């Protein structure tokens, strides 16, 4: 770990003022400290925001719910309103990490966690995300866990979050405070695709702080989060699916499908959703939607199975959700 300056922010505006180009915000520390110990992250200044009053989960006027950026993953997962109105989010959270980590990890930190690509962590391996222009060791290395959608020749790393996949399916909004004031960004626009600049992972501007995440009012229908991984617990997703479905009189009136473990960001399958909307709820539509969800996939040498796995998981999840309707 490199030496760094540490400062505790007194309030949000103070935090934002302090955070310069070589600064990082510190909340639960579950990812940042690991990266700092490995010297993958080498901030000069760490701004501790963990004591700011951003940990509440509050009802929004109009029926939505606001998750404070410092709300713990375990706290959100256990929140009765989340469990009742947004079960897909509660399930996603509970399928992430371990109880110990969930007790520390925050909503904001979860949004900003870095990829688990091992070449990103290995300072001896080339990585465009770590050192722009250095190359990508994963392209023809161990890439079983890597992206099949949305990646580029610069970077094939996946975003590791479970929570964000659920947030994507829920059409959540991320609230930010920066030096120029406040703004809101849809979760689906919050993370960037790598293109030629995989080191730029989000739309956050310098010093901008995630203060909360808003969930829109509960939608009728049924939702679920399913996750396939290499062991029963405490593993990142090979493929995960967050989906919700509303079926009225045998017709699908609303569908949301988001995928995890397959792309550099939480991956909304818009085309699949469009295909479902208005279709008769049945295996034929679900099969077509599953095909559409992985259309254009570009697997690498070791991860072609993710395409088939995602296809099956989307199809099965939709069938099950329809069965509950």
């Amino acid at each position, binding site marked *: 770990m*490199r030496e760094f300056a540490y400062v505790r922010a007194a309030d949000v505006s103070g935090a934002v003022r302090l955070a310069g180009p070589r600064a990082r915000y510190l909340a639960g520390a579950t990812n940042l400290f690991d990266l700092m*110990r490995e010297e993958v992250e080498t901030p000069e200044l760490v701004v501790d925001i963990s004591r700011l009053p951003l940990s509440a989960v509050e009802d929004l006027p109009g029926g939505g719910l606001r998750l404070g950026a410092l709300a713990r993953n375990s706290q959100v997962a256990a929140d009765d309103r989340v469990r009742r109105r947004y079960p897909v989010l509660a399930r996603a959270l509970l399928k992430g990490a371990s109880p110990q980590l969930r007790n520390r990890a925050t909503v904001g930190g979860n949004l900003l966690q870095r990829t688990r690509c*091992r070449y990103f*962590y*290995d300072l*001896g391996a080339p990585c465009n995300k770590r050192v722009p222009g250095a190359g990508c060791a994963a392209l023809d290395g*161990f890439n079983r866990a890597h992206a099949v959608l949305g990646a580029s020749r610069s970077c094939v790393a996946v975003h590791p979050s479970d929570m964000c996949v659920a947030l994507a399916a829920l059409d959540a909004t991320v609230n930010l405070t920066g030096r120029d004031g406040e703004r809101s960004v849809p979760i689906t626009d919050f993370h960037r695709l790598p293109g030629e600049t995989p080191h730029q992972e989000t739309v956050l501007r310098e010093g901008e702080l995630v203060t909360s995440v808003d969930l829109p009012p509960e939608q009728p229908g049924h939702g679920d989060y399913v996750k*396939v991984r*290499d*062991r029963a617990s405490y593993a990142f997703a090979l493929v995960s699916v967050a989906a919700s479905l509303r079926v009225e009189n045998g017709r699908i009136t609303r569908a949301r499908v988001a995928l995890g473990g397959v792309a550099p960001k939480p991956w909304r399958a818009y085309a699949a959703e469009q295909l479902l909307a208005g279709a008769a709820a049945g295996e034929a539509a679900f099969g077509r939607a599953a095909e559409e969800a992985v259309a254009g996939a570009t697997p690498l040498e070791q991860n072609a199975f993710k395409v088939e796995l995602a296809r099956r998981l989307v199809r099965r999840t939709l069938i099950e959700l329809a069965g509950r309707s």
Partner: protein
Amino acid sequence: MNVIARGFSLATRAMGKVARLLPDGRHDPLSTRPGEIGRDVDRLDGPAKVSGGIRYTADHAPARLAYAVPVPSAVAKGRITAVDSSRALAAPGVVLVMTHENAPPMRPTGAYATLKGPVAAAAMSLPIMNTDRVFWHGQPVAVVVAETQEQAEHAARLVKVEYAPEPARLSMTDEAAYTPAHSVLEESKTVVGDVRAGLAGAAVTVRGVYTTPLEYHNALEPHATVAAWDGGDLTVHDTAQYPYGVKEMLAKKFGLPLSRVHVRAPYIGGGFGGKTPAWPHVALTVAAAALAGRPVKLALSRTHTFHMTGGRAPTRSSIALGADERGRLTAIVHDALSTCTTDEFAEAAIASSRHLYACPNIAAHQRVVRVDRIQNAFFRGPGVTPGSFALESAMDELAWELGLDPLDLRLRNEPGRDPVSGHRFTSRHLREAYALGAEAFRWSERAPAPRATRDGHWLVGQGMAAAVNPDTVLIAAVKLRLSADGTVTIHSSTNELGAGTSTAQTQAAAQRLGVPMHKIRFLHGDSDVAKTRIPGASAATTTLASAIWSARDELVRELLKLAEETPLAGRRVEEVETRDEGLFTRDGRGATYRRILEQAGRDHVEVTGKSALPYQTIKRATSTYGAHFAEVRVDADTGEVRVSRWVGAFDGGRIVSPKQAVSQMRGGIIQGIGMALMEETLFDERSGRIVNASLAEYHIPTHADVPDIEVRFVDLPDPQTPLGAKGIGELGIVGVAAAIANAIYHATGTRVRDLPITPDKLLQI
């Protein structure tokens, strides 16, 4: 692992028929007697362990301690052309940077695994940090010593090392394979009968290629060494499975008399063979302490345990089995390949195929490829663990081909003698284990066809596999001290790996001496007590029991000399029993220990006991046996496997401490579940880097991956071993991977022959 048995086996071959003239193992009268042995007692060190009362190696912090962090090499092979330590030396708190340019000379030793040369614990013969050569990626090329761990970690990244890289051999390829001189306990090449004829005449044959990846032990406690020089004396706390071997190694490396080197390793947080050899950091810590002139601690990070300690070499087994129409084996062919380094140590995957089944024609051939990786190591069930995955999968395939129940096939091939050596067994109760396990599992209720049971998404299947693991007795000596208050202290140089050795030995000693358990203290892990060579090999229980048995005889002899004022006067050793806290003749005459010492005016009596030579391991075939019965559920869509039920039934002779034994077997089965379903070291053959050197990406089972595991023991004493016991430490893992692969086949109809069986390999089901 098993130098002694290896020596014996070589000697046996040299002696030929002479071995038959050797005596059998001494029958232990305790082996059939009820008492403390076999009683279900709680682990004696349990309360201290769960309340943080045990000091492990890295907990030691002598005064003026400095902290060391190694710098791993960035190339797999080549020379160090320049080291620039200036930035590291200028960093806060840095005491020194040790490189090959300033490290004190460390004399090379033989590598332990090769079983050549003097018995010492050195993992490798390579002169680490006394040369500019780089032998593997991750080799320590510098050690930074600083005032704090964090300062040392930071400065270690500031050491700039330049290399002249050379082409490295990093892959296990056939072209470079050769037959090693020996394959740890096993001959590298075995030919019995004529396998070509056996296959040609077979009614049914099966062939398959089975692979296992590079695996790492990942004991919860990473390796650590704390070294302190005091004048000419060197005291080292080390996570050593083999403290006496580390003492010998350090004495040799630093030119010290044995008496000046003190290695302490009372408690180890798991070893599994990964702490049997002393990896380079051990000597480097001692060297750094010499350079620094103050005590130094070096605790490897989890990542560095992948770089600087060795794992189980990958294996590839080609198997061909032939059987007649009644399912009797006519041929077993097992060609195995694994890797080694400059120091030749073969992961002898052929082992099970030489011992498990009766067959007139057996050809087993182990080959290795020398690669530029870190030395591979012993790992729970060396050879038999990966090899049994191959053999026991192939047996399952053969059973399906024959239309026989896999258990029935095994029963039809249960041998009366060792199929290769022709030796008789000291005891072999595998049939009983099969019966126990099958009944507890309700094996007979299994569906006769694959892919026949479905529960929602889940395809359900059952599989089984047999296990064999060599049993041996090694060398140990203990000091036994009887005090005037009637309490007994037993000192030994072996350690407590976490398996419950100290509890089992206290039980056994209590019964041996006729003293209640609470009056016995079993102390362990001090290399200075006596020459003790129990580096592993599941041999601690019987070897220590043998030493304590002989100490008991010595004690009786000494006490009889002191007992002239008691009714024991003039009695001979054979005439008295140790019971009721004293010595008594069969007609009830005698005296308590307290009385004998009191009358003799003695504060204590101290004796030494040495383990007896295990003739039975030369003259006969000695092994432990097991049968695993597994149920798995496989998600038909995603290929995820969940192990849902397990029964393991084992023949380990008499079980000394059932609670510890059950726990030990469970641990082995859990480790086997990891091996079957998730464990794999991703070794990047382009660079020689280990890519997933962390527990986040090197998966071992979580609680959610582990079902209820039922363990049964045949619990029949072996007539020729101390306590009637056999060493079961490693037995639990053997055969587990095959039982799971076989259950997956039964569930899905898909046969996976390369481990680990991850979901992607089952997507085609």
